[in-house]
């Protein structure tokens, strides 16, 4: 811990003191968790009946096939379409023509600022409500596409701006046209810088698929709801659902970190927040 800016490397006395604090913390946390576990035990949350669903093959199958796989499918469909959306509007925001740039800016700002759930409820109201399960499914996917697409547009824009200026200048100097510079020089390099951000966006999309709960869309949360309504085992169900989401998200995060190390290095992409004044600057 010598490398912390907040405190010096501790001396022998401080080490002993810190060890004491550490023990006290462990004791306090153990007491807290002990109390929680005891409370759960008291309320009969650890009985076989409460957990039976999660050792029954039928339920496990439902969790995996109707739950996890559908959720993953929704998230990846949304992210892939969102990448396209992001490329179009990200490049649009960098356009030299005001009549392209400003509408793109407005679309991106709007979809980034509007809550996904509000979007989802609206799309469900106009499109999904009469189409049953697939209507709910696509309402969730569409809402995720426009939201994540707007976020990714900002990521793309930041990624393209992060490519050293000399690259584009050199390309223009050897006589490339604007489209060529974008497609052959800037985008390929930008994608490399953006990959980790895109994978991280998968985590966001995956978590947001659970918002489908609001419109009774299929997916992991929906299966979980069905299970706890039938078995009345809310606590075990929440624990299992959370564990599944956390595992998948940690895997994705791990992949993102690996890609960052492998392809990008230390450089982190800076994406401005919604309503950030810097997003309104004219491209140079």
């Amino acid at each position, binding site marked *: *811990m010598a*490398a*912390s*800016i*907040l*405190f*010096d490397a*501790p001396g022998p006395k401080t080490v002993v003191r*810190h060890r004491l*604090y*550490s*023990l006290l*913390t*462990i004791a306090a*946390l153990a007491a807290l968790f002990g109390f*929680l576990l005891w*409370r*759960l035990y008291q*309320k009969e*949350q650890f009985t076989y009946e409460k957990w039976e669903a999660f050792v029954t093959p039928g339920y496990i199958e439902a969790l995996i096939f109707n739950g996890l796989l559908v959720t993953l499918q929704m998230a990846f469909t949304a992210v892939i379409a969102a990448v396209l959306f992001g490329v179009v509007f990200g490049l649009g925001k960098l356009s030299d023509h005001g009549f392209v740039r400003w509408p793109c800016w407005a679309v991106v*700002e*709007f979809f980034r*600022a*509007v*809550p*996904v*759930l*509000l*979007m989802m*409820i*609206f799309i469900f*109201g*106009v499109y999904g409500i009469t189409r049953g399960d697939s209507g709910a499914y696509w309402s969730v996917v569409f809402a995720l596409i426009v939201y994540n697409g707007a976020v990714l547009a900002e990521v793309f824009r930041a990624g393209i701006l992060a490519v050293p200026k000399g690259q584009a200048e050199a390309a223009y100097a050897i006589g490339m046209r604007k489209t060529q510079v974008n497609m052959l020089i800037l985008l390929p390099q930008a994608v490399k810088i953006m990959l980790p951000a895109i994978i991280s966006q998968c*985590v966001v999309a*995956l*978590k947001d*698929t*659970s*918002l489908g*709960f*609001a419109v009774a869309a299929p997916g992991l*949360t929906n299966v*979980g*709801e069905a299970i*706890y309504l039938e078995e009345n085992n*809310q*606590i075990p169900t*929440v624990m299992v*659902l*959370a564990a599944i*989401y*956390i595992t998948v*998200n*940690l895997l994705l*995060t791990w992949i993102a970190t690996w890609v960052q190390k492998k392809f990008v290095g230390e450089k982190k992409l800076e994406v401005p*927040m*919604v*309503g*950030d*004044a810097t997003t309104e600057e004219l491209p140079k």
Partner: protein
Amino acid sequence: MDAVLDNRDLVVDAFTHTVLLFLLAGVMSLLLGTLLAAMRVGPVRSMRVFAAGYVTLVRNTPLVIVFIFFRYAAPKAGFNFNYVDIVWGDVRMNTFFAAAVAALTFYTASFVCEAIRSGVNAVPLGQAEAARAVGLPFGGTMTQVILPQAFRATVPPLASVQIALLKNTTVAGVFGVTEAAARLKIFTNDYATERLQLFLIFALVFVILVEILSFFAHRLERRWRIA
């Protein structure tokens, strides 16, 4: 337009709930998040491990699951907010509202912790070394050199987190709080022909709220910027 104009009270009421959820959960998540961040960057190992574990677990759990936990699961173990029932004009802060605030607070706190940690990490190590080298004691190093810089670096990510919180308050609408999203859902059922206008009006209010937040964040950032 009629749907909104005729029901102005309901719309104002819905957004009052939204803003209240945001303010309460915002302040509480900042407090809890700061506490977690202090544990996360502090010298005591078990505190660091605990805060890191909390952040990893909560950040990777969907907000809806956190809501289901506070709304449906925790009461089964006897943890509920039944004692909360504050009625204040048309605003009703009941057990659902309290569960929503709790869910938003615990969820957002993990992001606040990460934002603050990234702010602290943004201060170069040389700053602390230089401060110690010129003989500043621990308190001086902290208050004169490190914290002012860390605090400034923390403003933009914290603002992003709070903007996300504002948008996340809509999830409370699914769990029994009549805030903006829930009100929109009721309206779209009752006034099916005006769905588009309704959505645009509600969305616009959110855009305005977000812009206000980011305006203040920018002013803070600019005011505290070192030349």
